[in-house]
């Protein structure tokens, strides 16, 4: 029905490794970059990839994993939509003897033997890095520093963790105060609409912390429209470091970005091969990530992939 009937062949016969990968969705540019990275590196590594887009639904991911088990793929990898609720299906995978690798987001299973490893970034750490930068930046500040926060989609793991990490970090300086925090749904439009009201409600905003670049970029427009200078009147901290965000950083409109790299592909493929070869691998592999200041952004921008 969907063409490509050749992919329907039972894998494992041709000696080629087959990886079943279930992606969260394509809800952001970041996610698309992540998908692309995985697809490209699978091709480079000569691994056959069965890709599924769960469209943001855990149910779909579980379905996909079940189907991978039926198809007897060699390795299953997925970026869980939510942290909990994977035990049942992971147990089925384990019983079928198929190793599982998590990417990007972790699961909270008590039974760590259900999956081989986790490759991805630490959202809490991203929030923390952002907060620490701010604490450092405002060391000398006297008086209260008013912070507004643009949260990601309510209830999503990155939103919760980044908020948490940031809050932990800024607790170090009692002058730092989050005066308003609202969800912008990770979108530019959301970020802009919320920031417009923040600006009207709060005469003095010193810092904006956005849970991703897109909301920050949206807020940027609201700030400009309000006649303020982003990066100066209001310092902006975001997370992700996608191209547009890096550009804004390089232009001095943002002040700081904590990277959350989507380029997990190569690491994932490496682990797939290792797992299949029976090598032991660490329970947790963190992606190589960094933070950017405007200067670093300028330097990094020409070689950015996404």
């Amino acid at each position, binding site marked *: 029905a969907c063409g490509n009937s050749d992919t329907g062949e039972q894998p494992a016969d041709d000696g080629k490794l087959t990886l079943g990968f279930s992606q969260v969705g394509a809800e952001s540019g970041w996610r698309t970059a992540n998908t692309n990275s995985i697809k490209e590196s699978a091709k480079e590594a000569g691994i056959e990839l069965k890709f599924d*887009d769960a469209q943001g639904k855990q*149910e779909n991911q579980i*379905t996909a994993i079940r189907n991978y088990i039926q198809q007897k793929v060699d390795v299953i990898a997925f970026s869980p939509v939510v942290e909990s609720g994977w*035990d*049942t299906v992971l147990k089925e995978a384990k*019983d079928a003897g198929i190793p599982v690798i998590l990417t990007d987001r972790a699961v909270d299973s008590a039974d760590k033997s259900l999956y081989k490893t986790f490759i991805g970034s630490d959202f809490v750490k991203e929030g923390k890095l952002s907060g620490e930068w701010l604490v450092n930046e405002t060391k000398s500040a006297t008086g209260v520093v008013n912070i507004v926060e643009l949260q990601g989609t*309510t*209830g999503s793991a990155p939103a919760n963790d980044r908020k948490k990490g940031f809050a932990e970090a800024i607790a170090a300086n009692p002058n730092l105060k989050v005066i308003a925090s609202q969800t912008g749904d990770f979108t530019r439009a959301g970020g802009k609409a919320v920031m417009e009201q923040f600006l009207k409600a709060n005469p003095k905003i010193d810092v904006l912390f956005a849970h991703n670049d897109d909301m920050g970029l949206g807020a940027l427009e609201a700030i400009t429209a309000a006649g303020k200078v982003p990066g100066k009147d209001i310092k902006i901290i975001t997370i992700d470091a996608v191209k547009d965000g890096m550009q804004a950083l390089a232009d001095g409109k943002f002040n700081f970005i904590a990277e959350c790299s989507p380029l997990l592909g190569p690491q994932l493929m490496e682990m797939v091969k290792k797992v299949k070869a029976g090598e032991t691998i660490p329970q947790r592999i963190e992606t190589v990530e960094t933070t950017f200041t405007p200067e670093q952004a300028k330097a990094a921008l020409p070689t950015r992939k996404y």
Partner: protein
Amino acid sequence: MTTSSLTPARDWWRIPQRYVPVLATLTLLLVMYGIGVSQYRAFSNIQVVFNVFIDNGFLLVVAVGMTFVILTGGIDLSVGSVVAMTAMMSASLLRSGMHPAAVLVIALLVGPTLGLLMGCVIHFFDIQPFIVTLAGMFFARGMCTFISDSSIPITDPFWTTMAQERIGDPKGTFVSTSVLIALVVVLVGAFVLAYTRLGRNVYALGGNQQSALLMGLPVGRTKVAVYVISGLCSAIGGILLSFYTLSGAPLIAVGMELDVIAAVVIGGTVLTGGSGYVFGTVLGVLVLGVIKTLITFDGSLNSWWTKIVIGGLLFAFILLQRLIGIRKK
């Protein structure tokens, strides 16, 4: 000349017109399954069919409730959120150490209560169901994030057994307990619709509300009842979902109401009410499930093509269903 040639058309194979949509759906479903089997080798494995049931058990239950509502000509947009709310509540109550039996009771009460409230507002204040249940949807979703803005794992042993129990051959073909529960709900739903007064009143209400009123049927009671039933089914669906995922997450089952409505309508139930069968709904759920399965088996579609192909398959299916339906007319 006999009068029989002039009687309202009845086909030589004597399938009454009202069964045609359901049969068309069934035929197409089988065709679709056949295509899957011919394209992908592992598809013929019977476990694939069981997996469709395992993965869509909760959807099935919710769709049964929705069938009642749609048969009266109403609609219930709150189901997805109520499912999530029920799962969330169960998870949070279990985490707080409550006995699983008590949790089950509470969880099974909340959905119907919300349904009761919505039904009463719809009936007594004569407000359109779409709006009332949309508000219900916001409310229940709001409750989810209100309970907790992050997902809550369930470690309760009862839940865990229910979730991980494999009925059948645990190494080979099996179904989960949820499937059995879902099938029971389907049977009960079908029975109620076909063999009880409540069920027939539901059809009458969907056929013509004014007539139903003038015929002395308990219109108000029936109307409220379908929302309670839908709420109950959503609650059961929510519990099944919490078995399925062993957790409650605030953003789970977003947009599920559309899947459910689509399943019911694909199953041959008319949105204006008055005609349709639970069996059709089962088929509708299976159609969606098989489409999903086909796409994962293919495994070569990227994210946006997935959506386009889902839309395309849906279109092809409905078009064919429509054409078969017209021809048989």
